[in-house]
């Protein structure tokens, strides 16, 4: 109980911290774009305003956008009593309001949670998962997703996705400006002389590195979070073998591909929605820890 309460609070604090760090990075990128076009403050202000609006939209409509993108449909208690009872039960166990249930018509075994806080959250499962899992296993999966909601992982993950997206956009814009040359303002930059050249060099490096680092941070965070959600999910059901069994079934799924999953939504799913590859570089870019490792930890509980 204690641990989970602290997890939610630390996630809220981290979310605020994350926003500040990203505003800083975005500000620097904006300022460099501004210098490149002749006016530092102009670029800075435009970049900050743009990213504020963008992240507000992302924060408030990100959940429904993700649901639409992945082809999830809201379902009623009448259509899926089994899924509904499981979600209701675990919401009671977690002490949070019952999230809305969604279903994806897909034979792949997968599930995800999204939203900005426990009051505005949803849990999505594939029809394949509903068919393949026993009651205990489904409870394990739903408990894992419920922990993402209770611990405010969903908020943190959504913010990360939105902010990394902004950095990628800005860096892309900056790189394009370098490649195509500035308009007019460039000649004026002679005023700054060497200083401007150095700034542009820094900007160039930053523009290339920022999105990669952002992406790596996002993935590292996401992997740690999966272990946490496995553990706190087990606290909710008091039955770790349920989720372990479900993960074993998922790992044997010959077609883990969710048709409508893409890079933007991958880190949300309970197990990676793409084909498995191995190797150091692919490991760096994994959104999820290896499933065998997760099963091992659950069995040791």
């Amino acid at each position, binding site marked *: *109980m*204690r641990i989970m309460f602290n997890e939610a609070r630390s996630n809220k604090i981290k979310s605020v911290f994350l926003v500040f760090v990203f505003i800083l990075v975005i500000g620097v990128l904006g300022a460099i774009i501004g210098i490149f076009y002749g006016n530092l403050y102009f670029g800075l202000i435009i970049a900050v305003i743009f990213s504020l609006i963008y992240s507000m939209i992302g924060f408030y409509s990100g959940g429904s956008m993700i649901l639409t993108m992945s082809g999830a449909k809201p379902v009623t208690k009448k259509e899926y*009593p*089994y899924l*509904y*009872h*499981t979600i*209701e*039960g*675990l919401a*009671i*166990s*977690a*002490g949070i309001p019952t999230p809305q249930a969604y279903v994806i018509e897909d034979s792949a075994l997968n599930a995800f949670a999204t939203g900005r806080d426990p009051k505005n959250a949803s849990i999505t499962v594939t029809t394949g998962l509903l068919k393949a899992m026993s*009651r*205990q296993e489904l*409870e394990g999966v739903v408990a894992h997703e419920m922990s993402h909601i209770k611990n405010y992982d969903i908020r943190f993950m959504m913010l990360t996705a939105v902010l990394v997206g902004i950095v990628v956009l800005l860096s892309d814009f900056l790189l394009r400006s370098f490649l195509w040359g500035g308009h007019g303002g460039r000649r004026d930059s002679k005023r700054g002389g060497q200083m401007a050249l150095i700034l542009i060099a820094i900007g160039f490096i930053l523009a290339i590195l920022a999105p990669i680092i952002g992406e790596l941070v996002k993935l590292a965070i996401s992997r740690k979070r999966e272990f946490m959600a496995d553990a706190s999910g087990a606290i*909710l*059901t*008091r*039955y770790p073998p349920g989720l372990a069994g479900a993960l074993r079934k998922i790992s044997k799924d010959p077609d883990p591909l969710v048709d409508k999953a893409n890079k933007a939504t991958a880190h949300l799913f309970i197990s990676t929605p793409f084909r498995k590859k191995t190797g150091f570089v692919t490991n760096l870019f994994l959104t999820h820890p290896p499933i065998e490792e997760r099963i091992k930890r659950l069995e040791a509980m």
Partner: protein
Amino acid sequence: MDPLTITGIIVAVIVLFIIFLYNSLISLRNQVKNSWVQIDVQLKRRNDLIPNLIETVRGYMKHEKSVLENVTKARSAVLSAGTVEEKGKASNMLSQTLKSLFAVSENYPQLKANENFLQLQEELTGTENKIAYSRQHYNDMVMVFNTKIETFPNNIFANTLKFNRETVFEATAEEKRNVKVQF
């Protein structure tokens, strides 16, 4: 610093401590109460489903009168139970009798084909699990509350402020092993 200021500071610190302690205990006790309401809601839901179930099953189970009677009896015991302890015991009784009813129902293939029965079975399984989960949540809350009022230095003040131990909602011996009910 003169002794008066020092005494003043010490008194202020103690008063502040008591205020914070009091507020956090109130908030915890309200959470305990609220999670108790959750159990009650689920117990009521189960009690509402049972007459329907009995009605559906009666036509098929001609030779198992005692099984049905046990369920009805246990159901009214839950209704009349007052304290947390009594409710826990009665609720566990009812879970047991329902379990044997569903076990017996395995012998009646026609019953297993009845759409209404299957729906009720799913409803009751879901409700049983929700009872288990709400009890688990309640017991967690009680544990946090009890630990808070019993640890030092909170225990010095908790008694005077009239905060007493809350009772946990006992699980059946069987459920302790198995956590989940599956009919």
